[in-house]
């Protein structure tokens, strides 16, 4: 999903706080006329996008009996929360916590060390070591997680981490690094040199400059990188599938697949489990839509 395809190289405009200055009205009108076909199409595609989402939400509030006799697209005649109760009784809270632990446990170190590396790469430009390190990260953008999962599995076994949440966290950190460094270093590069210079005049160390100057100035990019990686790790499926076994270690996507097997044709319960696992992300989306979307495309379309 997201994590597998959008390792893109962002430019300095990685974070667009506003959807960029509006095109001039003449272009706007032009494009609008140009695209009435596109307009109709957009609405159709919106319908296509919304239909499954709508269906899953209304179904989650139906009883199993009423689901089989009612029109699947009609809203439920009487709301029931029975399905949510069923899902919550299946250790849902445990799985939720696992996902939180994995995501936070991977994101915080990943973004921190990526930021440090990005700072070093920008400030130490000219150093051959740093140039090489940067080159390795760039190459790393092209390594798909799927391709290295077998050695990662072996390593996890040798480290005696199999079936722990840490086993999921460590590779997640590693695979978050290349893109994060790229986005962050592009952003830090835009900080005026004079600011660094004046910090040095004031006797600040590089370490102090990093946290007191670069860190606050890079905040938009840090948020972008955090959200982008959080999405990928939260929705991650392959690592938990391969590196854990114990049901107590399941993260949400894995738990979901298990619910599906367990509930069989109890579609309302399946719908409730899908809804519950998706709610945190939709909330995140509602809060930080702009940051999120700019994070997803981080700098393309130029």
């Amino acid at each position: 999903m997201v994590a597998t395809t959008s390792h893109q190289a962002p430019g300095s405009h990685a974070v667009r706080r506003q959807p960029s200055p509006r095109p001039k009205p003449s272009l706007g009108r032009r494009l609008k006329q140009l695209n009435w076909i596109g307009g109709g199409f957009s609405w159709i595609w919106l319908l296509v996008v919304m239909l499954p989402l709508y269906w899953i939400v209304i179904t989650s509030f139906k009883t199993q009996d009423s689901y089989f006799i009612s029109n699947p697209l009609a809203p439920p005649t009487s709301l029931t929360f029975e399905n949510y109760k069923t899902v919550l009784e299946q250790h849902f809270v445990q799985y939720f916590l696992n996902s939180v632990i994995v995501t936070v446990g991977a994101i915080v170190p990943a973004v921190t060390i990526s930021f440090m590396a990005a700072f070093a790469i920008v400030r130490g430009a000219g150093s051959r070591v740093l140039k090489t390190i940067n080159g390795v990260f760039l190459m790393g953008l092209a390594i798909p997680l799927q391709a290295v999962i077998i050695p990662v599995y072996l390593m996890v076994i040798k480290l005696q981490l199999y079936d722990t949440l840490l086993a999921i966290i460590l590779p997640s950190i590693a695979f978050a690094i290349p893109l994060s460094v790229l986005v962050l270093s592009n952003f830090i590069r835009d900080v005026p040199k004079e600011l660094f210079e004046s910090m040095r005049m004031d006797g600040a160390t590089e370490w102090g400059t990093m946290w007191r100057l670069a860190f606050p100035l890079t905040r938009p990019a840090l948020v972008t990188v955090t959200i982008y990686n959080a999405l990928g790790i939260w929705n991650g499926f392959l690592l938990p599938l391969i590196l854990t076994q114990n049901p107590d270690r399941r993260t949400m996507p894995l738990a979901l697949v298990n619910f599906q097997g367990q509930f069989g044709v109890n579609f309302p319960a399946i719908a409730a489990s899908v809804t519950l696992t998706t709610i945190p992300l939709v909330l995140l989306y509602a809060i930080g839509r702009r940051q999120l979307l700019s994070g997803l495309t981080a700098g393309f379309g130029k």
Partner: protein
Amino acid sequence: MTTLAPPAVRVPETSRTTGGRGGSVTWMALPAFLMFFAFGIIPLVGVLFLSFTTFDIIGTVVPSGLTSWKAALTDPGLMNSLWVTFLIMALSWLFQTPVSILLGVFLAARFRYRGFLAVFFFIPLMISAAAISITFKALLDPSFGLGNGLHIDALNQDWLGKSNLAIGVLIFIVSWQWIPFHTLIYQGAVRQIPTSMYEASQIDGAGRLRQFFSITLPQLKYTIITSSTLMVVGSLTFFDLIYVLTGGGPGDATNALALQMYRLGFQSNLMGPASAIAVILVLVGLSLSLLLRRLGGRADESQLEGA
């Protein structure tokens, strides 16, 4: 970007800095580098090594020369997965690209409902492939799904039980999730096209359709390459979606490369041949992105990174 230069192992120990005080910050890059080296570079080199060994899920590795490669390459399953992967790649590209361009061009314009549309448009990007697969699986269920409930016979097919239909469903779901993403890319690119080009062409009397084909499309060339690279290279790694939706079936009809690797290694316990497939996966991905980059004719490495 993805040149297969040997990973940076033979770095001189002493950091020579030509400008400024690079040495004093070098150590700050080390935590990230070591982490990525350990769980990114070592496994990448490791998978190549492992493809020349035989071992099982317990993990006793025995070097065995070309045995695993022979087993992987003579397995008819490999040809099938390559074909399935290619099919998914080509068909999903053919469907997603025109739709994304059309929607992107449209959403770039000022338009009253655009904000409203945009809010809902991108929700699929937030949802895990597992959740999406489960939803569509339920929705398309021949006995209890949408078709049966609405009594529309055309919708009431054994969607995931027939090879062609299953591939079609897969491509539809991929598009459902990713068209918004590519639309976003095109939308940004269209906004960058200078207004003056349209004005000039208008003076020359070009119609809207003409403008679309003579200005918009050529101006989007690099974006099309970027977006296509992402689609093509990304489709090599579809795993969760297929795993949950069809498990590779019916038969082997949707058994794409990444899934074939998983089945061989973690289900049939043939880790050596599975590693060989992983190597093929990396090579195919690299050559495809290099090919597309060549096609684009621009050395802008940052635009063509696919993963």
